[in-house]
């Protein structure tokens, strides 16, 4: 336990610090992407890295996402650990073939001879008033691609710890950064940053007894807020922050739902074919005899991400979550 006083820090600062520490600790770590050097990234997450480590270690690339990820593959083949920034969620799509056909499969293809320790940072999700193509939640694509880790922090400390763990991982990690939490603050001591346990562990953010909210990334604070609001209804909600979508922490999730008997999966991504389908399906499978009511999902609608002025209608908010929780209680009573 540290005795240093905790100062509030933003998730953005924690991410920057994680890359800085990784660059300092391991000469094979290289940061690359569009505008990550001189500018420090459009979200300033790589701010100062080029200055401190030089543009060979933090590199402005040409504007071509497949090229960025494809060259990162080659760099990883030669023993480097590239940390790639995709400028926005939707701008990772041009790199999809490299991701699916190579990044995710190279270890398997070569029977383990050629692992690719690449971290692919993707600012994702909505709620920041972004115009079209700047607010996608694309995690379903990554979850459906074996060979990738898919990780997303919801707190400042996790942002640091999970990014360090991602960079240290010998497997490729898609590291999804919830854009709208970039400026969220937590008490966190950047002088003694906490390194979290290995990737793949969910955490109970708030213990509760009546229903489990299963969520991750940008929806974690929303669920915590909903849990607070639910007290007025007499509901004691448990909030599980998955942190890692792949690998999936069945143990933590199953234990929680077996305890509460009810579950709602909450995420911003489109409902149909989205991450919640997998989560709800495996919870239903593993907790069938414990469930008092069906596992419900509160997700983005099955529509392309809406324009800024309408996004509030699309995003799962406290009310929609409480509605779902309410429907579960009714089911139980029926």
């Amino acid at each position, binding site marked *: 336990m540290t005795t240093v006083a905790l100062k509030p820090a933003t998730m953005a600062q924690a991410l920057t610090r994680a890359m800085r520490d990784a660059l300092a600790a391991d000469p094979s770590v290289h940061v690359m992407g569009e*505008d990550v050097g001189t*500018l420090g990234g459009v979200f300033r997450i790589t701010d100062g890295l080029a200055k401190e480590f030089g543009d060979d270690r933090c590199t402005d690339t*040409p504007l071509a996402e497949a090229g960025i990820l494809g060259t990162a593959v080659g760099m990883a083949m030669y023993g480097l650990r590239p940390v790639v920034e995709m400028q926005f969620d939707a701008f990772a799509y041009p790199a999809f073939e490299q991701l699916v056909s190579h990044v995710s499969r190279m270890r398997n293809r070569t029977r383990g001879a050629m692992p690719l320790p690449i971290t692919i940072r993707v600012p994702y999700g909505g709620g920041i008033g972004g*115009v079209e193509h700047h607010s996608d939640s694309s995690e379903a694509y990554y979850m459906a691609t074996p060979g990738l880790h898919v990780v997303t922090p919801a707190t400042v400390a996790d942002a640091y710890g999970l990014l360090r763990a991602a960079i240290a991982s010998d497997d490729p990690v898609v590291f999804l950064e919830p854009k709208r939490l970039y400026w969220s603050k937590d008490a966190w001591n950047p002088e003694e940053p906490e390194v979290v346990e290995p990737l793949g562990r969910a955490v109970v953010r708030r213990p509760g007894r009546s229903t489990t909210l299963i969520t991750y990334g940008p929806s974690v604070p929303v669920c915590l807020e909903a849990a607070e609001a639910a007290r007025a209804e007499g509901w004691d909600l448990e909030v599980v922050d998955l942190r890692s979508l792949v690998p999936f922490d069945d143990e933590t999730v199953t234990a929680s739902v077996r305890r509460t008997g009810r579950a709602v999966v909450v995420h911003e991504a489109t409902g149909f074919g989205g991450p919640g389908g997998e989560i709800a399906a495996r919870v239903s499978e593993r907790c069938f005899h414990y469930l008092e009511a069906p596992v419900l999902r509160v997700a983005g*609608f099955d*529509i392309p991400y809406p324009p800024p*002025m*309408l996004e509030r209608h699309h995003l799962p908010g406290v*009310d929609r979550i409480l509605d779902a929780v309410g429907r579960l209680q009714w089911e139980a009573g029926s």
Partner: protein
Amino acid sequence: MTVMEQRGAYQPTPPPAWQPRTDPAPLLPDAQPYRVLGTEAAAKADPELLRRLYAQLVRGRRYNAQATALTKQGRLAVYPSSTGQEACEVAAALVLEERDWLFPSYRDTLAAVARGVDPVEALTLLRGDWHTGYDPYERRVAPLSTPLATQLPHAVGLAHAARLKGDDVVALAMVGDGGTSEGDFHEAMNFAAVWHAPVVFLVQNNGFAISVPLAKQTAAPSLAHKAVGYGMPGRLVDGNDAVAVHEVLGEAVRHARAGGGPTLVEALTYRIDAHTNADDATRYRGEDEVEAWRDHDPILLMERELTERGLLDEDAVRAAQEDAEALAADLRTRMNQDPVLDPMDLFAHVYAQPTTQLLEQQAQLRAELDAEAAGPEGAGR
């Protein structure tokens, strides 16, 4: 004869008899960008055209200023200004016939406006009330494309389709220097050349892709040198010289319309403002560089020419300014009204017929909104 067959048959030929498939020399750009203003060529330029371009430049500059101001007032979510690039924006719109198509990138709202799209509708995307605010078929302006270079194959496909249908329609597609690095740029150029499609590619090389300068984007002698690698002509033009851009684009459009195939035009210009209002350009470039380009400003160049030739009287200046102010005033007024939004639109245009699932979701939102409207009690749980 089919459109496809016109290019002739192919015989792979063993090297002793091998010949280049076309003569590369005419496809290479000149060593210096084509210029008209301030050169001898200016004497031949049509005074009417000069005046028209001048008025459009003034109007464009004002439009850029007004749109930028609207971001400060919170009326636009974001605005990527084309200040300093008005010559390209305006010329791209003016060289086209009504039946032609313009494919703008996210920075090219001005080109759309110069082609006749209502500025409020052109700015819908950046205001945030909907994505594309105008009907693309009305002025034959494709939706502003945010994913860089992705609009280029669309332009090729459209031009090809028009040719297949026997229509003499040309597509003009706009892209930035940064966008030329994307795979879609390459694929579009190649399809256009192989299909001999009536399409003109206008690269506005404004020196930067956000913070990344051209030297980190390409090592080519010029971007126009890419053309020969596809078998199409590459042209280099002073992008701040509206007459030169108009002439080079006009030639390319006529060439395409006449069945001569595509052209790649690189216009050398400069982004005077930051990338968008949200960007801080001082992080990556010095003011001296910007100053050098202010001396080569498109409006300045035009004014000099017009003045020298005695073509710019006070009336013309005043008329141009009044027109520009009228545009700005109208834009201001209308953008200061809150847009009328219908959340139900979210579900209306996902498919031709909404699915049962979407109808369910629409009903859910309807109910939520009704509850919200009914006040805290109605909304209560």
